[in-house]
């Protein structure tokens, strides 16, 4: 039985446990359209797609403490069930999810997910890029995620997230997560992630925390792997992040230290590299928001693991302006200057994004 069918059946089963509670629904549509122009191009690979029209659909069906929650992304180059989770609100501060989830060690993705409207910049930091867009870290897992929050140090709040699930595999096209709509779990191994963070209040975004993850990523069908006979990569991540969010300013910084062990039947090699970014956003008069982002890496040039990802961004500067011209609709202009492992390019992007609830 497909996992998606299993989750639907579980929802119906759980609904009996919430007898007396009404069924409740929510639907959120986040469409966007983007045009990209690339110039000063000296890199063999720049962008997979130059135009993206997409609609991100989120739905919730809830009865009592049980909910079915999903995110389906339809664009001019893909259609995918990005998240599909059955949730149980175990206590007021703890929710247990099973299904396909976004791993919690990516602060950016765990906050913004796929909808373009809710992120200020058009692009996400490359370290948090999705697998099908050349991303280097696993983002989609299928398994269990437990999110919790507790009071700590007086009015502060300790938030935790732990998760374990089927990790992506490495293919010639990059990382490939387990697909709920076309399930094939033959090669996928279980990976684990965890994050812990402290926040000065329950409803504030400001805070800081630590991240950790360990994944075994089997290599399947590589014709010219960077390590002859590559069988799998053991990837371990340790990270730290901080967010300062006030009325006019928002500053977000994340750094990951990665340890990759590349294993073949005859040998294995270990390496370390680092990746991270700092983004600053400033609200301006007339519903404008300016933003700057600096992405960087350490020891990336020597990494064999990163050679698996030809679009990997070694360093990037991003500058842009967003205009929320009417309620729930925004126009964003963004300029980027990017250095990959093999070259350099610049790009300009224009995006319309919206949210309809």
């Amino acid at each position, binding site marked *: 039985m497909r996992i998606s069918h299993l989750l639907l059946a579980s929802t119906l089963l759980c609904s009996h446990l*919430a007898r007396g*509670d*009404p069924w*409740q*629904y*929510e639907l*959120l549509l*986040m469409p966007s359209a983007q045009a990209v122009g690339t110039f000063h191009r000296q890199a063999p690979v720049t962008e997979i797609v130059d135009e993206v029209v997409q609609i991100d659909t*989120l739905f*919730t069906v*809830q009865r*009592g*403490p049980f*909910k079915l*929650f999903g995110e389906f992304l339809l664009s001019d180059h893909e259609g995918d069930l990005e998240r599909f*989770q059955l*949730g149980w*609100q175990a*206590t*007021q501060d703890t*929710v247990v999810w099973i299904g396909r989830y976004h791993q919690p060690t990516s602060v950016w993705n*765990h*906050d*913004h*997910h796929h*909808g373009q*409207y*809710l992120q200020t910049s058009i692009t996400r930091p490359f370290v948090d890029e999705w697998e099908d867009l050349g991303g280097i870290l696993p983002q989609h897992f299928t398994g269990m995620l437990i*999110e919790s929050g507790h009071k700590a140090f007086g009015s502060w709040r300790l938030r935790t997230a732990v998760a374990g699930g089927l990790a992506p595999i490495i293919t010639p096209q990059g990382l490939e997560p387990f697909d709920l709509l076309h399930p094939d779990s033959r090669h996928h191994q279980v990976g684990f992630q965890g994050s812990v963070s402290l926040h000065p209040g*329950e*409803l504030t975004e400001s805070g800081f925390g630590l991240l950790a993850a360990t994944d075994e990523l089997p290599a399947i069908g590589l014709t010219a792997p960077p390590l002859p006979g590559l069988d799998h990569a053991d990837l371990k991540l340790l990270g730290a992040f901080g967010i300062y969010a006030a009325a006019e300013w928002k500053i977000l910084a994340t750094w990951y230290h990665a340890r990759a062990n590349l294993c073949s039947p005859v040998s294995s090699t270990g390496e370390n590299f680092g990746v991270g970014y700092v983004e600053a956003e400033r609200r301006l008069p007339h519903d404008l928001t300016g933003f700057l982002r600096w992405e960087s890496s350490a020891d990336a040039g020597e990494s064999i693991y990163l050679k698996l990802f030809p679009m990997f961004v070694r360093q990037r500067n991003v500058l842009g302006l967003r205009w929320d011209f009417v*309620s*729930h609709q925004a126009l964003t202009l963004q300029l980027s200057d990017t250095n990959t492992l093999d070259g350099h390019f610049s790009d300009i992007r224009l995006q319309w994004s919206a*949210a309809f*609830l």
Partner: protein
Amino acid sequence: MRRLLTITLILCLAAPARPASQAVVLVVRADSPVRELDSVSVRKLFLGLPVLINGSPLHPLRNRSDALLDEIFLQQIVAMSQSNYDRQILIGVNRQGWLRPTEYHRLSDLVDALKADSSSVSFMWQRDVGHNADIRVIRVLWGD
């Protein structure tokens, strides 16, 4: 006679210059398991966060039957502007699949919804509660 005039003048000055005082109250169905709800829980509830009583989530109903109530809701209950509130609701749906409070633009519809669900929580003018035995007041949220 002079003394009487002075007393009359003082009474006139002390008399209220506006209609009788108003209050916005937090209300539930009469048999609701909700006995009390502090202001932080009320704020969380109307921001879409889960607030549980006996393991079941409460259902917030937003009363939009008049403009002044909207203003009081934003200033006193959720303590943010309408645009920030809208964004907070979007973030909750996007991150956690939280449900936004159901909105009612007519008081009669709100009262019907409140009566139909013992887990629902709403707010209204105290004068609108009147002597309705099906509705119980939990606390005063705002008074002028």
